[in-house]
């Protein structure tokens, strides 16, 4: 654990195959093409299986609602880990966000709630920064400790605050805050209605598109918009400004950053505190979405945010996709999408078939065989049943995450000094 973050350079072995050594980043047109192809396949499956909820606006809206808190927690993780601090305390910071957000949201107004929740999360982040950056404690352990502390403190405060006086008469209990007012939400006038009409026809592709777009433009909470803005802003700040360059350098090689006059402690502190604030915002989103603080409300979303971030390869775009995937699966299971999941079996079979062909072309015969085998199994499963068991639906978000991680984890690369302790003046 005394190891510092300096390494001697690894050998840059000659690349024999692959020419320039394609670190292929997908270009925008390619991404659009992939998205288009995906939608076509999904709507074909939807039409064949007759599972209209797969692309219904309600399902998409549910997915969005489920994705935002996870995405915000993940974005928090991204800030922190890009600066080299693993933040498993996101869950605790989210809890702080739900509590303080609900408190101020109830006693003042929802926007003050947002502010208070963010500040609460930031306080958690600051504590994490003090413990890991200043005291140099193992980051995972510190995160676990913060989760325990946050749960304990909020439970105590909730009892002291929500169960007495005005709060109690307005509906507060030891485990629940009094209700919070709604925060403003937006609907694109006209468009939403037109889309929902289109959607009802269940036309191939058109209704699917209408459902997806409809879900994304109807009744969108201002917090969701805020989250989108924060994603764009994060990308811009971290990858297009010198502040971001410095911050990322602290996660890649803090000793090098230090040697160029970057105040590594400062950047780590800022990053981890912002990280807490974002997780706190995720918590506020939950509290305002349900209009209450509820004990245990976050139920592991902080951890899942972390998973989404890793899934997204420590990048905002990938993270958004990971969170979206989880939100979608979660929404499916909550909306009791037994039919939908059944239809997705077919989709999965098609995807596996495509993968089998791809692997075959690339001469990876064993993987191709496996993919083909699973595709056939799934297709048989689909053909011989009408629905799938509730439990499979319930498990789908978790299984999907495991599967996707299993398929992609080896291509991931985390910031090089992520998780390593760093002490000023000890490097080199």
């Amino acid at each position, binding site marked *: 654990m005394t190891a510092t973050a300096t390494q001697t350079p690894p050998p840059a072995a000659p690349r024999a195959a692959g020419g320039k050594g394609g670190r292929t980043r997908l270009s925008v047109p390619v991404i659009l093409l992939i998205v288009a192809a995906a939608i076509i396949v999904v709507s074909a499956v939807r039409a064949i299986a007759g599972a209209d*909820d797969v692309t*219904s606006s*309600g399902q998409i809206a*549910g997915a969005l*609602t*489920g994705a935002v808190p996870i995405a915000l927690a993940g974005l928090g993780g991204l800030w922190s880990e890009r600066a080299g601090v693993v933040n498993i305390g996101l869950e605790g910071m989210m809890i702080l966000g739900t509590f303080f957000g609900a408190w101020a949201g109830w006693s003042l107004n929802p926007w003050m709630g947002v502010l208070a929740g963010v500040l609460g999360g930031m306080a958690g982040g600051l504590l994490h920064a003090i413990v890991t950056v200043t005291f140099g404690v193992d980051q995972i352990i510190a995160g676990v400790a913060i989760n325990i502390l946050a749960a304990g403190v909020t439970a105590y405060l909730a009892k002291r605050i929500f*169960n*007495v006086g005005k709060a*109690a*008469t*307005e*509906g*507060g*209990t*030891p*485990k*629940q805050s*009094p*209700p919070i007012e709604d925060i403003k939400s937006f609907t694109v006038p006209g468009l939403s209605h037109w889309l929902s009409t289109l959607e009802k026809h269940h036309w191939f592709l058109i209704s699917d598109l209408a459902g997806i777009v409809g879900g994304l433009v109807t009744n969108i909470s201002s917090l969701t918009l805020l989250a989108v803005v924060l994603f764009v802003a994060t990308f811009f700040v971290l990858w297009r400004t010198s502040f971001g360059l410095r911050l990322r350098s602290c996660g890649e090689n803090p000793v090098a950053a230090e040697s160029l006059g970057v105040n590594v402690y400062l950047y780590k502190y800022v990053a981890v505190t912002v990280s807490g604030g974002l997780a706190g915002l995720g918590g506020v989103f*939950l509290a305002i*979405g*349900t*209009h*209450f603080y*509820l*004990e*245990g*409300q976050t*139920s592991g979303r902080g951890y899942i945010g972390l998973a989404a971030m890793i899934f997204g390869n420590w990048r905002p775009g990938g993270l958004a996709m990971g969170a979206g995937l989880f939100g979608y699966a979660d*929404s499916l299971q*909550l*909306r*009791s*999408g037994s039919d939908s999941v059944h239809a997705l079996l077919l989709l999965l079979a098609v995807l596996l078939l495509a993968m089998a062909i791809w692997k075959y072309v690339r001469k990876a015969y064993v993987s191709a065989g496996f993919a083909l085998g699973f595709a056939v199994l799934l297709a048989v499963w689909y053909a011989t049943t009408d629905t799938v068991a*509730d*439990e499979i639906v319930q498990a789908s978000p978790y299984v999907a995450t495991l599967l996707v991680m299993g398929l992609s984890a080896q291509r991931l690369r985390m910031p090089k000094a992520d998780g390593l302790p760093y002490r000023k003046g000890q490097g080199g």
Partner: protein
Amino acid sequence: GSSTTSDSGSTGGSGSASSSSSGGGGKTKGVGMAYDVGGRGDHSFNDSAARGLDKADGELKLDSKELTAANGETESDRVQRLDSLAAAGYNPVVAVGYTYGTAVTTVAKKYPNTTFGLVDSVVDAPNVDSMVFATEQSSYLAGVAAALKTKTGKVGFIGGVQNTLIGTFDAGFAQGVKDTKPSVQLTREYLYKTDPRGFNDATSAAAKAQGMLDKGVDVIYTAAGLSGDGSIQKVAGKSGAWAIGVDSDQFQDPALAKYKNSILTSAIKNVDVAVYDLINSVKKDNKPKVGTNSYDLANNGVSLATSGNFLSDVQAQIDAAKQKIVSGQIKVSSTP
């Protein structure tokens, strides 16, 4: 009654006074209440039990002690809670919630001179008052109301956890719907199979409700404790849709005040009545009420709320159904 916090009545003796003596005196100490998770102030059945206590307290001036369960407790925690109340001499000791079933069995044996009350479950012991509520009957009436009020012909039921207790709600509701209008389509969903989180997960309930609403369901009955708040909110967000509350009259719930105009009615479980009865029997009549005591429509142990007057147009049919149940003409099944 929410002005009292759990600090109330703490003037009573310390727990260490008579820890290993069996059997409390019963005369000096008041009632020992052991609440389920959430405790006093939960706007649900714990609160209802507390109301029963408060009522008795107002009349008899008792010196009571209230303890509350925490999330993720084990059997031994519950045993210890009841034990400490009985050991300190509180009598009767009321256990609120079926989770206390086994614990009451254990502790009642150890303190034969103390009377125990158990809400929502049955323990066969000479000093236990098992208070069970025929929630299938009130749910039946809720089903009648739902069938009569739906315009789309689709109603829904959301249960917190798929267990026997919630099954009674499900069964009664389904039967009520079917008996009233066989053409009405019922969707039943549970939040969790076994995870008790189902009573405390408003987010999931909201999503479930939204899913139902999207499919055209316009009356949703949610028997899922605190989770119900989430479903009621979603229902309130859709005009013309109705929510049916559970356990207490949720129309009156301050936490739901904003949505009360969408709360058609609530299937009420009058735990307060049962608790009050027990306290009175011990403290006033000195003739502890023991055995399995069923609270149903007939003795007003369960009922269908009328606040809001949204049911006035169909009240006659509901009353008729109630009459048939009370008279035994309709047998409501308690298993789905």
